[in-house]
């Protein structure tokens, strides 16, 4: 793997590619299309068509084993008046905030120190922080639910040592959100750290050295070199963690064992994707579930647009 150099700059395309169309048989001329066709076919069937079809299904009262009745925008009207939808939306935003902010701050700090030129055991630390990434969400949810358990969890035992009453994380709204956010942060902060480190390694050492010679301390180097050079990748990770945050599903499904589809009796930790699943595959309301999918898509588009404007402003500022 050493020796891989990649940039997002496309290769210069002015020179003609080495294999040209001339003097080749029909088979050879069609070969390039055959090489790229699998992707286009797979994407059309399993990506694009279902995506477009979501908008169509959302206009129906669509029962998978019964009738499909066109009802126009009724699913959307119903959704906007559905407190369960707004509850799930609120939970999703809350969990997203609780997981994204600590994750990015932690990753910034760790990337900064991992970038130190004379760090020993650098490979060990880099590999350690990527271990959670290879651990599945399901296993993560099981082990953290156990660590945070009210009666037998290690965390509550430690809290008990300092005199805190046992906290029932799953049954409380804030507690369940903190629990889910902890799982998300644990699983992703190392990966984000390495993304930031990759960008930091592109900053010439000389910049840091010059700053150090000029008397800039560790914090000043962090504030005035590390943060500004990471701006593009920070925006990128905010967007990806937002899109990922909208799709949080496994953690809430696995922590509330009594009522998994709603994540608790009062839906205290039901996310939007879990609500979509509950409506689609629990209640068999495909139309209503698809409408929730459309709502999620709109949120993704809005976030992408805000990000685009924000990125444009940051470029203009510099």
């Amino acid at each position: 793997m050493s020796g891989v150099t990649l940039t997002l700059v496309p290769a210069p395309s002015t020179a003609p590619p080495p294999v040209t169309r001339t003097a080749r048989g029909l088979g050879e001329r069609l070969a390039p299309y055959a090489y790229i066709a699998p992707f286009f076919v797979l994407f059309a069937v399993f990506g694009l068509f279902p995506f477009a079809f979501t908008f169509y299904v959302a206009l129906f009262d669509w029962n998978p084993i019964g009738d499909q009745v066109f009802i126009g925008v009724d699913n959307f009207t119903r959704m906007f008046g559905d407190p369960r939808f707004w509850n799930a939306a609120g939970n999703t935003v809350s969990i997203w905030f609780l997981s994204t902010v600590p994750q990015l701050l932690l990753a910034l700090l760790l990337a900064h120190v991992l970038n130190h030129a004379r760090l020993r055991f650098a490979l060990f630390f880099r590999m350690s922080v990527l271990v959670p990434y290879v651990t599945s969400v399901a296993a993560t949810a099981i082990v953290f639910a156990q660590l945070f358990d009210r009666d037998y969890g290690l965390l509550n035992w430690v809290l008990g040592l300092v005199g805190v009453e046992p906290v029932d994380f799953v049954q409380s709204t804030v507690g369940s959100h903190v629990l889910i956010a902890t799982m998300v942060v644990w699983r992703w902060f190392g990966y984000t750290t390495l993304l930031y480190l990759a960008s930091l390694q592109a900053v010439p050492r000389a910049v840091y050295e010059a700053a150090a010679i000029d008397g800039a301390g560790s914090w000043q180097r962090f504030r005035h070199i590390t943060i500004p050079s990471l701006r593009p990748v920070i925006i990128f990770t905010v967007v990806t963690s937002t899109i990922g945050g909208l799709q949080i599903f496994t953690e809430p499904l696995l922590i509330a064992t009594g009522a998994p589809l709603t994540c608790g009796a009062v839906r205290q930790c039901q996310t939007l994707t879990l609500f979509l699943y509950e409506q689609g595959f629990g209640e068999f309301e495909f139309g209503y579930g698809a409408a929730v999918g459309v709502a999620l898509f709109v949120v993704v588009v809005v976030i992408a647009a805000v990000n685009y404007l924000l990125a444009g402003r940051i470029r203009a500022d510099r």
Partner: protein
Amino acid sequence: MTTTAPRRRRHGRVRWWTYLLLVAAAVVCLFPLYWMFVVATTDTATATRMPPAVVPGGNFLHLVGLVLETVPFLGALLNSLFVATAIGVGQAVLCALAGFAFAKLDFRGRGTLFLVVLLTMTVPTQLSVIPQYMIMSWLGWVDTLQALVVPGLASAFGIFWMRQHITATISDELVQAATIDGAGTWQVFWRIVFPIVRPAAFVLGLFGFVTAWNDFLWPFIVLKTPERYTAQIAIKALQNSYDVDLGLAMSGSFLATAPLVVLFVLVGRRMVAGVLDGAFKG
């Protein structure tokens, strides 16, 4: 780690708190896995004792036996292995092939089609699980493993990654020379290009493998009978059957995680290098 990294020169010594911070981060990352093993090897009485046991017990085989009684877990591990391997290998080969076409072959519509590949990355396909399920139902693929494998083979990012890599590592002259010697594009790809870019394709396949092994939502929707479960869905089934026995779901989680931890010990440094080298660069 990377040949692109600027040469390391000294700028100040590493402070003690830097190591303290990194050791703390490593402990935070590794401890839950250790804890999984501890609970997976203790009986319920010990796991529910206060203060909790912090060293592994001798109950591992008993719990594994219980796991296998509850759900066909060995079959689930094999299903996961099959699905993840098929997706990893398939992505590596298909993306290298398409990346080769976009990097080194001339054909009408090349630029536009590549742009389309990039644009597909912006479509959040995970939000359309309901129509995806309907398609699987029409195809008669519900409760089959190909419902997991076939859609997982397409990777726009993989094509982008392999194209960049092939552009950077393989000279046009090399491809030209082979073509003049009478090799068809397939021979050029399979005998020359793929062997050279195999390390990059391997890392791509590795990420595809890990993602497929850990996938939950889609297998959870599509798989119905326990014999078809992947390891992740089997964990969920263990939780359903004995949600009072903490050790059982933890044993299942441990069994499903251990193969990936072994894999990570063997090739984790290449995954780290993969993220640092090109998984994203702004």
